[in-house]
């Protein structure tokens, strides 16, 4: 509940900032990917670099953020260091304030993440594990992860379900 209130306030805050940021984004338009496209964000987004939406390669993601989690997961052995872009940062870049994210993996596994549930630092779209890019055979190239060890709420079924690996598409729907 508290989290929801906080998010609501945050949403309100960003809402007020909207005209300014839109102008800023417009001035700083999203570039086109130069490397292998890793992630395509489509749907109700305001910032795009293609017909269908916004496409990111690894460098574009790295340019957005290089945030790190040091945590264990229930799918791996031992402590892992993840590097990636917090989803909130990504959405901010795309000027998304509400709605629901439909995240899909290469094998068409799909989950929903309401924008309101997204914390400023969690989850994030990890593009490196233990300093290395992740291969498709090892849950790569992108993996939505939570800092599971930092908070019990990230060790719940819903967080595990949202921890989608082999991510390659996100659709923003209202």
């Amino acid at each position, binding site marked *: 509940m508290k989290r929801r209130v906080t998010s609501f306030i945050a949403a309100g805050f960003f809402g007020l900032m909207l005209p300014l940021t839109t102008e800023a984004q417009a001035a700083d338009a999203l570039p086109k990917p130069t490397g292998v496209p890793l992630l395509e964000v489509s749907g109700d987004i305001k910032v795009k670099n293609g017909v269908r939406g916004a496409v990111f390669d690894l460098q574009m993601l790295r340019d957005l953020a290089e945030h790190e989690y040091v945590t*264990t997961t*229930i*799918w*791996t*052995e031992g402590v892992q260091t993840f590097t990636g872009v917090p989803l909130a940062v990504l959405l901010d870049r795309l000027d998304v304030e509400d709605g629901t994210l439909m995240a899909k993996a*290469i*094998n068409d596994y799909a989950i929903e993440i309401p924008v309101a549930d997204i914390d400023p630092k969690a989850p994030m779209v990890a593009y490196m594990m233990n300093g290395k890019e992740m*291969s*498709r*055979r*090892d*849950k790569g190239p992108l993996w939505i992860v939570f800092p599971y060890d930092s908070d*019990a709420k990230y*060790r*719940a*079924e819903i967080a*595990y*379900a949202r*921890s989608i*690996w*082999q991510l390659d598409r996100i659709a923003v729907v209202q």
Partner: protein
Amino acid sequence: MATVLGGGLAVLLAVTLVFSRDVITDLESLNSANSDNVQWTLTQVEVEYLRMAQEISSTVATGSVEAENAVLLADLRRSFDVFYSRVGILQNSPIFADLRQDEAFFVPLGQVAAFLETQVATIDAPDEVLVSRINSLHEAARGIEGDVREVSVAGLSYFALQSDLGREEIALTLEHLAILVGILLLALTGVSLFLLSINRQMRFREAELTEANDRMNTILSTSLDGVVVTDAEGRVLEFNRAAEQIFQRDAQSVRGLRIGDVVVPPHLRELHDAGMKRMIDKGERRVVGKGRVQLEGMRANGEVFPVELALQSAMHEDSEIFIAFLRDISQRVADEQELIEARDKALLGEKAKADILTLMSHEIRTPLNGILGNLSLLEDTRLSGRQSVYLHNMQISGKILMQHVDAVLDIESFEAGKLQIVEAPVDLGALMQDIVDGQSGSAASRGNDVSWRWVGPPATWVLTDGPRLQQVLLNLVGNAIKFSENGRVIVEAEVQPEVDKQKRPLVEFRVSDSGIGIPEADLQRIFDDFHTSDASFGRRAGGTGLGLGIARRLVKAMGGEIGVESVEGHGCTFWFRLPMATTPEPEAVLDDVRQPDHKRNQRILVVEDNQINQQVIRNMLEREGHEAVCVDNGRDGVEMASEHRFDMIFMDISMPVLDGISATREIRNGSGLSSDVPIIAVSANVLPKDQKRFFEVGMTGFVGKPLTLEQLRSVLGAASPSEHPEEIAPASSLVDPAQIEEMRENVGPEVFATFLTRFIGETDALLDLWDTIGETGDLPEDMAGEAHKIAGSAAVFGAVALRGALLSIEEMAKDSETASVREALPELKRIWSETRERLEASRS
């Protein structure tokens, strides 16, 4: 109780905490799902395998169609990678760590992993190589189909079991939770009860405190004593209602003020401040805790009044307070003053009473002295039988009167506690007979008959204080006679069977009369001092009202008891019992009175203002063969004593000009001729303190008034100056030796002897002649002339007394006072016989 409960709660709380931690842990493990959806993961392995297998099959079916190959191969490779990734999870995820220990799981999983590792090279190979090896890949994939299935099935059955276990665990956790809740409930109930009891105790204490406070306030406000409470500096904290009334101040207005400025009068304020300072500086306490002290207080209007103060200190909230209890004692002090004044008045009254008693003793005793003295002289004259009886009765009554006076004066002794009981052998029979004899006259005058008798065996001789016993009996007999008319008064004595502590038998005396009796209401008061019967009886009988009071004291002093029984109108019986030891009849005592052994011819100075007493003493002394020189007051006495040598001085006490005490002092302090001779006090003042005073100024003896011959003789015998035994009185009133010597020298011894013989013969003859005068006969002829003639001869021979007696007879004879002459004759005869003796003695 509270600590036990608290301890129990603490233990319970600790247990609950430990237990709850377990439960919380359990709940946390439920909360943080440690597993993804394992079933999904496991089945997904099979799904991904089938997708991969399908991709392989599609590729096999297309065969060598180049255009389609690139897309197909990409899909194949992606499906391989997805499967690879999925199997990697089964190999690495901690969720499957336990499962991986299961042979049914790890063996097929190993087969699948081996397939993946083997085929990685083929998948990663270029397209044409992959296409060329597609059949063997297809074969290998089909080869692990069963293994994938087994992995999935083994995993599912394992997790089904795990799920059961998990449910049980949850059930257990919930059970624990229930227990914990129960324990917590118990603990909370305990805590509630504990708090409830604490609350109740608190409320009870609060109520108690309030009640105590209320009570205290009630006590303070209803206290009759003023209560003032101050702090250590003397500032008023409390000032109760009584204090308000006492000091006429309002508590509100004095609160916070310094007590010294409120209640201490200005003239004491300096002292008060000094005292407070001493106490604060040095802790010195002169009043605090020292009980009640009397001080002065001041009211609002400035009135200063005596106040009684008790000051106490106490600790109150870390500081000392003083509590003063004050009482306005103005009334008490005034009452005390009144009492003191009343006492002073009473003392003055007592003194006046004592003065009256002293005066009375003097005023009554002096004339009595005269009466009894004269009776004493009269006894030695020739009396008829009836006269002797009358004289005897008069003497007894006189003595009784004297005893009455003594009785009144005894009060002084009683009051001073100086009553002395002197026991001596007493003949009870004689004593009672004397009383009956003495009272018979007064009894007869009221027509009463008085008698006494023994009841039972008599106890004639006993040891007791005779005079005191007589006093008691006389009083009772006197009363009986007073209150009876034409009746009988009987005195009875009876030896009682009881004995006292000293084994002395009790003798009961009863005085019964047939008189008017005593009302019952009066019986209780009858022995009180100054009790007299009511007016009607008083008129009939009169009295001082002291008699029975004295009787009661005397009986008590003698160790006995006294009482009365009476029926009004039928007489009454007074009784008293005294312990008396019987004693043998004493040896017959020589009658010293009749056989005086004291020296005659003493020269005695009599200092006495009363002419009758002077005369009585003179007569008594001369009668005893002494010479008396009389003066009328102390001043003359001192002069006489300084100029002449006397053998003894009789000194009255109360005299004009100079009293006996002062005269004695002057004589003793002077160096006159008689400064060292015995001085005998003659006084009606017989109070013990007076006697003491007599001796203090140098008196050597004491005789009471009335003076009797016995007393006189005893004093003369005892007080004779032994230091001058050779000195013989130079002159005698009876015969003047100087005159005899003068005549002997004048006429010569022979002629003197002849004259003397003739003189004696003539006088003998004359007196013989006069002796014949009968009681009725006339006086002889020329009696006056004969008396005159012999008187002249007597003068020649220095027979002074004889001459005096003859001259007085001559006068009486001239006046034909026959009766007087007759009365004078025995004295003349006595004087002559003594004179004759002296004259005969002077022959040699």
